[in-house]
């Protein structure tokens, strides 16, 4: 059994937009998106139970390589960084093509995603990747178990939970409710430096340059504007005065 976790590396700390391009500034140090660590954790639990090889795949710039040491320290076996100047400026479809090609190359039985990114990614990536791979996919998953040759998951929706079964290979996007994250041990951190971390390019994945990056993008960023302020927002920072200020505010608006 081979599990590929598709992780996104994001700028560590607070995300920044490049004011010139309107895209995320990815030049600084990076870390694995926290929500993707739940996917890593779920893969590690399968590895430690029934057994599996766990490979973490990401698309990103050079600093993402260092960020990939975190899932390796946690227990993943290998990591693959798709890094190529041709991939810069990829939109959803370009990113999905890169990930789908990297997953295909690994012949994964199970592809895991985290549910959200902390830097503005939508919940639309995994279904695009799954469609390209022609595998079934389930999102918002809060529980996952292996059955004979397939999986059984719980999907949380707006109106409740669905129990869903799928054959393998399949793609699953997990939420942060699925497990509790572990911390890397000192031994794990030391081992991470020796684990294989492969850097591949667009050509290695058998993709045309025109399919990815700015050339392959079907959407574009046109500009940025500050959002309309909520009019008349009042700020109170004095803790002693705050209770009175709240009550006065409510009374003035006829709310108390």
């Amino acid at each position, binding site marked *: 059994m081979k599990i590929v976790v598709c992780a996104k590396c994001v700028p560590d700390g*607070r*995300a920044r*937009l490049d004011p010139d391009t*309107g895209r995320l500034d990815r030049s600084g140090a990076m870390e694995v998106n926290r929500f993707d660590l739940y996917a890593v954790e779920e893969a590690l639990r399968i590895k430690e139970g029934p057994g599996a090889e766990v490979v973490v795949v990401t698309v990103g710039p050079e600093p993402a390589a260092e960020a990939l040491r975190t899932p390796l320290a946690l227990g993943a076996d290998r990591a693959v960084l798709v890094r190529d100047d041709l991939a810069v400026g990829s*939109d*959803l*479809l370009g990113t*999905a093509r890169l990930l789908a090609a990297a997953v295909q190359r690994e012949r994964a039985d199970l592809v895991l995603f985290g549910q*959200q990114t902390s830097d*503005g990614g*939508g*919940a*639309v*990536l*995994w*279904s*695009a990747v*799954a*469609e*390209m791979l022609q595998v*079934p*996919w*389930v*999102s*918002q998953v809060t529980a996952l178990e292996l059955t004979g040759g397939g999986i059984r998951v719980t999907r*949380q*929706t*707006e*109106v*409740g939970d*669905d*129990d*869903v*079964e*799928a054959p393998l290979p*399949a793609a699953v996007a997990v939420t942060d409710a699925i497990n509790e994250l572990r911390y890397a041990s000192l031994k794990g951190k030391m081992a991470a430096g020796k684990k294989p971390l492969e850097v591949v390019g667009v050509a290695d994945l058998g993709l045309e340059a025109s399919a990815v990056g700015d050339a392959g*993008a*079907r959407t574009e*960023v*046109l*500009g*940025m*504007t*500050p*959002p309309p302020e*909520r009019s*008349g*927002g009042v700020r*109170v*920072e004095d803790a002693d005065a*705050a*209770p009175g*200020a*709240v*009550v006065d*505010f*409510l009374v003035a*608006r006829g*709310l*108390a």
Partner: protein
Amino acid sequence: MKVLVFLEHRGGAVDRGALGVLAKAVALGADVDGVLVGGPAVSALAPVAGRHGAAVVHVAEGDAFEPPLPRPRVDILAQLVRAGGYDTVALSNSVLAADVAGALAARLDAGLNWDLVDVVVRGGALVGSRPALADSVLVEVGWRSAPRLALFRTGAFEPVETGGAGEVRAVTLEADRGGDALRVVGQHAARDDEGPPLESADVVVTAGMGLGGPEHLVLAEELAAVLGGVVGATRAVVYAGWAPHAAQIGQTGKTVAPRLYVALGVSGAVQHKVGMQRAQTVVAVNSDPRAPIFEVSDLAVVADVHTVVPRVVELLRARAGS
């Protein structure tokens, strides 16, 4: 411009968000059709879509479409776009709609912009706006080719009745793609029998992780009681087991539009804000001065909830008693 709107439905009603997207498409001056995909009774919802602006309501109904799974919906939408000359597909966000949108983009090799809060026609081109960085900026986005896919933030637009009739057209899948490999083997409705209804509440007091523990939920309960309101919770609070799922406000919970919304120890993640952005007045108490909830607050109180809230309750009780 010819727009196809994905009409999601739950519990025998078309999603309000989808009706809102219909209204937006009509307001842009586009030719607007809708598509309903569902079990054997789904065609009964077509008149509602017609009344809200869909000139044609495509209906794909049958047992195969009953489970709320994305792939059969992608099949139907792709077929309609290819045959019907639609240059734009618009969806209101949900768990299902996001899954449909991503796969449809891959299937049609179409550009997808998501989390849009508005869209305008500028110089003949469609321009969307998407909040970024905890909603601190609006990014303007465009499409380089048709068909264009637009996934809107839940509740971005209010539904508007146009009084149209909506011509119903039955759709069947032309090519059997082998069905969906997924099977829904069980469904459990979220428990809605706990506590008074949030959606219709005049005042909502929401508990966030900033309360520090389930024992502090009493702060939200006491404030709600004195304001005549109902207690809500963030997703994190529900996942931590401090509050039932029925209390959850946000993306995978409820959408509320009360007269007064009080957020206690709520950071204000985008996924939460989509559930409360239509509140008339927002008061937030959080010790983190950079909490995104303050960006949508009419009164932002940067202080510890544990010291401020008991005193507010005391003052309000004294007022009520006097």
